[in-house]
């Protein structure tokens, strides 16, 4: 057993998994509350990346210093991603509350296609180089053999964001309202929770997390195009299901498990079937443990 290699694959998997987890949180929160697979979530992530790219471009031309570009571009990505998330919910999902379950699902798929092509037409179909917003050199030199500075930042940021989110859900009023709505929407409404606002808040938070993920991964990969949201979205959803949809720690665990599965699958078997591993894992989990790793199995309400 080659431990060095194993460690490298593991760290690669953790980096990838952290990103999956960040995006999976958006899926899992939305599903927890309105039981909808928000297909457009991957596109929100992609729009976050594009907004960051555009903001960074504008600020660079205007001659801002590097650290302020990092902060401002990330902020722009978060603000606009959140706005898109909010708007998408209002247009494509809110009018469909109470409709048969197939309807919002198809609407979500339509929204995803729409947003992809919207960016394609308004921007470009080409890959755009994405400048690393993080300072690459100068610190953390010593561990660069296993992890680059950006990768360390990815793991660190994801961890912090996820801890903050957990605290938020647990202790804040909005967080409590979210949990209440997730358990029983009608009941929450009766005790005075503004369900519309809670759902909007869920979309806004989920989208912001996706934007954070977008800035991180785009910085690491160095290029983006209009299609990056689709596959990542699919993987993140897989991660959410893997961990147990609706469960926040589940999404984190699911992301890491999926990231590592892909990494080890590629490292020890072959990258030919990288996506096949991911999907097979998904199918197996759904068949044998539909509630996911940390989810509770629910009983159909009759």
């Amino acid at each position: 057993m080659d431990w060095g290699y194993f460690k490298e694959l593991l760290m690669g998997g953790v980096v990838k998994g952290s990103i999956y987890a960040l995006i999976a949180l958006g899926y899992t929160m939305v599903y927890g509350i309105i039981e909808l697979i928000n297909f457009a979530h991957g596109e929100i992530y992609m729009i976050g990346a594009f907004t960051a790219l555009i903001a960074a471009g504008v600020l660079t031309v205007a001659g801002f210093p590097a650290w302020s570009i990092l902060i401002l571009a990330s902020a722009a990505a978060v603000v606009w991603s959140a706005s898109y998330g909010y708007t998408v919910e209002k247009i494509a999902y809110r009018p469909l509350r109470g409709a048969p379950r197939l309807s919002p699902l198809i609407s979500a798929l339509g929204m995803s296609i729409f947003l992809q092509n919207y960016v394609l037409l308004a921007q470009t179909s080409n890959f755009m180089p994405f400048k690393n917003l993080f300072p690459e050199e100068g610190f953390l030199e010593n561990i660069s053999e296993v992890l680059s500075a950006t990768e360390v930042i990815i793991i660190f940021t994801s961890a912090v964001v996820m801890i903050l989110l957990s605290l938020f859900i647990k202790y804040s009023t909005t967080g409590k309202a979210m949990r209440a709505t997730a358990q029983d929407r009608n009941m929450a409404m009766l005790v005075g929770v503004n369900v519309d606002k809670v759902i909007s808040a869920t979309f806004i938070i989920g989208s912001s997390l996706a934007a954070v993920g977008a800035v991180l991964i785009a910085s690491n990969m160095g290029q983006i195009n209009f299609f990056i949201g689709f596959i990542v979205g699919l993987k993140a959803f897989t991660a959410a299901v893997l961990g147990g949809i609706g469960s926040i720690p589940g999404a984190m665990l699911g992301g890491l498990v999926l990231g590592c599965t892909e990494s080890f699958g590629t490292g020890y078997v072959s990258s030919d079937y990288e996506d096949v591993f991911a999907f097979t894992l998904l199918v197996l989990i759904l068949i044998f443990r539909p509630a996911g790793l940390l989810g509770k199995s629910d009983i159909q309400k009759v």
Partner: protein
Amino acid sequence: MKPILDVKNLTMDFGGLRALDSLDIDVRPGEIAALIGPNGAGKTTFFNCVTGMYNPTQGDVLVNSPSGYSTRLNGLKPNKVTERGLARTFQNIRLFQNMTVLENVMIGRHCHSGAGHEIIMDPDNSPVKRMAASAFFGGMEIAATLLKGKRFKEREQETVQYSYKVLEKVGLEKFANNFAKNLPYGLQRRLEIARAMATEPFLLLLDEPAAGMNPQETKELDDLIQRIRDKEGISILLIEHDMRLVMSISQRIFVMDYGKKIAQGTPGEIRTNDAVIKAYLGEDIDA
């Protein structure tokens, strides 16, 4: 005489919560029995356990059909329970909204109208044989449907005729080709009963059939339920909050509270039962 439904020691847990606690309930042939209790007492959960929606944690659900066959229903899928002769309605109406009234009833005929249903439904046959028959006749049926043969048409016509007769029994025949969703509320409840009757049950489980009905409609329902019992020979177990209806039509009443049976007896006995009055009926007994 053996009871047609014999539930013994039925217990159902959801996680840590005990929704049903060692329940013993039985329904005798030709009887109208009622299950009452405050909201959340576990009445609907009981129905769900009996009809295969939930798999009970403990206890036995036994049926003894009038044709003399006895079987244990625990763990059977809902459709298998229906095949054994139990049919139900739902508290919140669950019709097939975008199908016509007649088609709703025709769905009730489903297990009696399929090719080979005699073999598939005969409880004497081994499960393997029934499954093989189900697969084989499933394939045959697709072929028959596509070819639209004579036998197929006949069978289809039989289903239509039977279903129409059921509609006549509940007085819905003139709405046969309307969409179910366009029926007024009271008639939707009736349609649910008709749909259940079409499955040819010997026991009908009605979950709050009178909910949301006005006194006139309730009166008609009262008649309908009695008629079903008298003319069709179907026994009935109903959950109901309308005490007047319960007291007037049922021979025996079971009272539940917090998942436990707290009393059982004739309407007269229940009316004067202290535990019942304390737990549930209280001052509301004559409402």
